[in-house]
């Protein structure tokens, strides 16, 4: 299967599937609406329990913007918000799809979910 994900986020392709990858975390956060740097940090910490450093956050923002996966919005404030682009949403959807396969297989093999679903009457 050919992946639509960018060849690399400056790491190997395996890294793209990690749910704690800064680019994936940022795309996930921005999928919920535009945010500036500080709001991104807080949101990511809340939904993923990951505290990104400012250097890592802005490094990832730079890469994502270069690849056209996010874009800045006009703002008079120095806190410039970013939003996810259509390409970014597509990339995130594929990454989430890949991770959900991993989640399903892992759950099944660890018997965390019943293998046969109860039929509705």
């Amino acid at each position, binding site marked *: 299967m050919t992946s639509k994900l960018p*060849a*690399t986020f*400056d790491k190997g392709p395996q890294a793209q599937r990690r749910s704690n990858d800064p680019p994936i975390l940022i795309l996930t956060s921005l999928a919920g609406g535009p945010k*500036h*740097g*500080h709001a991104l*940090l807080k949101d990511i910490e809340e939904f993923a329990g990951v505290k990104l*450093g*400012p*250097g*890592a*956050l*802005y*490094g990832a*923002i*730079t*890469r994502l913007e*270069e*690849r056209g996966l996010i*874009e*800045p919005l*006009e703002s008079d*404030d*120095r*806190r*410039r918000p970013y939003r996810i682009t259509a390409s970014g949403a597509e990339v995130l959807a594929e990454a989430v799809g890949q991770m959900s396969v991993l989640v399903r297989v892992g759950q099944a093999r660890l018997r965390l979910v019943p293998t046969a679903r109860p039929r509705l009457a």
Partner: protein
Amino acid sequence: MGTEGSKAADAHGGPHEDALLRWYPRAWRARYGEGLIALLDDEYGGHPPPLVRLGLVTGGLRERARQAAITGDTTPPVDGVRAGALMVFGAWSAFVVAGSSFAKFSEHFDEALPHTMGAHYIPDLAFSVLQTVAGVVSVLVVIGALLAAPAFVRFLRAGGWSSVRGHFLRALACTAVTIASTVPLVVVAHHLTAHQRNSGLHWYGAMFLLWVVLIVITLTMWTVVAVAAARRLQFRSAVLKAEAALGAVVAVGMVVMVGATAVWWGSMAKDAPSFLKASPGGAPGSPWDLWLVATVALMGAAVVVAAVGVAREARMWTRIRAS
């Protein structure tokens, strides 16, 4: 877009934040600096803790490496090949410093070897290999510079002088100071005995060390001039290919020279241990001669940088061919 860039030529925060931002390239600061400072204010009240500072320093260096096309995949592959070749060139400059240090260290080594059959063979052979390869590699570096000359002339005609003028003038001033300090050093050295010149007189040793530091700074500054100019040159495909090939050969030459130095070192430790000593004032007989260890460490570091440069060239060249 460039919205953030047009808003401010450069971002400004508190003195701590400004100092941290300086690790990032100017273009990056213009684009993202305001946002990053706002984040630091919001999150840490303008006083980020040490680990965050370290993260910003490494982040800034990473951005600089990316801007110089040393890392990353978003820069054009042609820039990546050129960056790889420039890494080899920079590594060669460091190797020249290490080589000069080795040349000074190994002065009169033949006299320390015993006059037995075969004792001179290996160290002499290793030294000859080192000298020959150094000569060949130097010629290759000059050829590389000559190949880049037409692109450099085009760069100057297109008004590129202003972008390297500052580097050039600083290097020129440093060269003038170095030359001015060489004259009294030579005059003084002329009136000293060989023993006085070789750690017999502490004040002369300090003077010589200062002169060596000046030489290293001057060489570094000219390397910066060359790299700053070459980063802006537009090479024709054939020239770029030749520069990449020369870079690879220079890197191989550096590896051979490190090998020859190691062989020389081993044979001297075996046949003339009195030539080596653990510290400048220490007793002779230790194979771990501090001067030699430092020299070979610098050579090794230069080889690593050159190898990374060649790998970068190869990777980017593969991308060019694939496209």
